[in-house]
């Protein structure tokens, strides 16, 4: 399997163990009956039941899902437009500034993004009276902004390695640029759009720091609730929640990989 003796396989195996051991132990202990997370006293679904009876947790989860879906969708549109501009428009005024603005949110520390947006929202409210207060709307705006950078990177890589002659053929046959985009370009970059949206969705669902800055009273997202619980100490229902999330994500990624593996050989032959 590997060309270079024993070092690489062992290093890789250790690395993957490091990545997965904590997650596996978290999943195992979510089925632990004992309140002390690390002392095993029997198999039980108790904490899952507890989780679904906790209104604070459920409300936060629902709010987070709504925010994630909205932010991912806005980010998808804006990120795709930005990617098209960066890949297709070779030269335009302010290109350096534009590409800098698009990719900087990728590495901007969360505390800065959060604080900056909060200060903006407060300043805007006192100058133009919008947005009135802070809550779901402000979180969606903040999340869309940083998710857009991720969508743009994903779509950009797909756009830059596809065969442009397909588009040229469509235009030669009389299709307008807009029609070409919807009939040719969009179906081709669709996989990138799907993964871009999913990436935005999970990033938004995951964010604690930015949401803490820009949310208002009564709009606590799921990570904010989890953080306050975890800060107070161990809570087995967080293990249960983590197991559910990991289960959903693992299934999703697995399905995506299988689809990718099935479609790839066909394209290579074509």
């Amino acid at each position, binding site marked *: 399997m590997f060309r270079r003796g024993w070092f690489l396989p062992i290093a890789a195996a250790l690395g993957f163990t490091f990545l997965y051991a904590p997650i596996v132990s978290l999943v195992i202990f979510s089925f632990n009956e004992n309140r002390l997370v690390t002392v095993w006293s029997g198999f039980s679904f108790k904490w899952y039941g507890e989780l679904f009876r906790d209104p604070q947790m459920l409300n936060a989860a629902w709010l987070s899902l709504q925010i994630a879906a909205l932010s991912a969708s806005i980010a998808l549109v804006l990120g795709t437009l930005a990617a098209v501009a960066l890949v297709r428009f070779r030269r335009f005024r302010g290109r350096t500034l534009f590409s800098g603005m698009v990719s900087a*949110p*990728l590495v901007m520390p969360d505390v800065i*993004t959060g604080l900056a947006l909060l200060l903006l929202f407060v*300043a805007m409210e006192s100058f133009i009276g919008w947005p009135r207060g802070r809550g779901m709307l402000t979180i969606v705006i903040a999340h869309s902004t940083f998710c857009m950078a991720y969508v743009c990177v994903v779509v950009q890589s797909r756009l830059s390695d596809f065969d442009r002659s397909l588009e040229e053929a469509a235009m030669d046959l009389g*299709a307008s640029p807009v029609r070409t985009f919807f009939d040719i370009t969009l179906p081709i970059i669709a996989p990138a759009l799907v993964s871009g949206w999913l990436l935005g969705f999970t990033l938004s669902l995951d964010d604690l720091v930015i949401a803490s800055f820009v949310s208002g009273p009564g709009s606590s997202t799921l990570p904010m609730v989890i953080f306050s619980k*975890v800060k107070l100490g161990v809570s087995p229902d967080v293990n249960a929640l983590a197991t559910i999330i990991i289960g959903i994500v693992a299934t999703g990624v697995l399905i995506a990989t299988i689809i990718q593996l099935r479609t790839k050989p066909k394209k290579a032959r074509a």
Partner: protein
Amino acid sequence: MTATHDPTIPPPRRLKPWNAVERGLAKVGISGRMLVLFAPALWLLIFFLVPLAVVFGISLATKQFGRPPYSALLSTEDGTVQLTLHLSNYIRIFTDNLYVAAYLSSIRIAAISTVITLLVGYPMAYAIARADDRWRNILLMLVILPFFTSFLLRVYALTGFMRGNGVINQLLGLFGIEPLVMMQTDFAVYVGIVYTYLPFMILPLYTTLVKLDVSLFEASADLGGRPMRTFLSITLPLSLPGIIAGSMLVFIPAIGEFVIPSLLGGPETLMIGRVLWDEFFTAANWPRAAAVAVAMLVVVVVPIMLMQRAQSAVVEK
């Protein structure tokens, strides 16, 4: 997708209104491409660039009671507009040992963690790049999977692992080894950063390593180069863009990290992200928090530019 088009309407007719709009806009000097550019550019201007300017502005104000809790920069008095700028926040940051120490220790923690992540991630990325096709996709999926699971929950998983009565200490107990104190130390913060940022290191490294031409290694081996020599004089230099990109993707966010030091670190683990958080949420000193953010931005700008250069180098290849 194509099934939704009504075949009875000839395409040229449908295009006419669009063409007219396009021609109309072209007369005023607006092309279709400008519209594509306009929406994301405007959004980023308002919600990314302007906020940074606002942070800079408010860092020059002082804390006061009321809403908003900072002094106004511009005030009108007897018909004259007055601009009041306070440098007190910056003076405080540069003279108070707490802030200086927090900056230095953030950079130190981020740098050490980045080196460890590189040392752990490089062999993994190399192994994935050299694996045969079927394995490669599975291994890549295994790298990406944790990235999609919640960051917060992964840090939480580590606390369960390293706690005093956690999994590691229970395992050590089986061999009769005394439990180790790992939580609430700088060591836990290093482990946390390496653990959560590892995929960010592996993916760019993998992208550069997988593109390397295998015939280069064969040529080197044919010419008598030992594996180590081949690695040092061919593989390593050629994978430099990946090393830079991966390192920056770990180093920059790690400097401003808040969740990891606050859940895994002890009270003496000083990191600037945590200082900013406390300044804002605990002390409610918005201008001071803004000044801390501006100073952090200055620290982070050089690595960001380095990363963009490395990134464009990867894209060009």
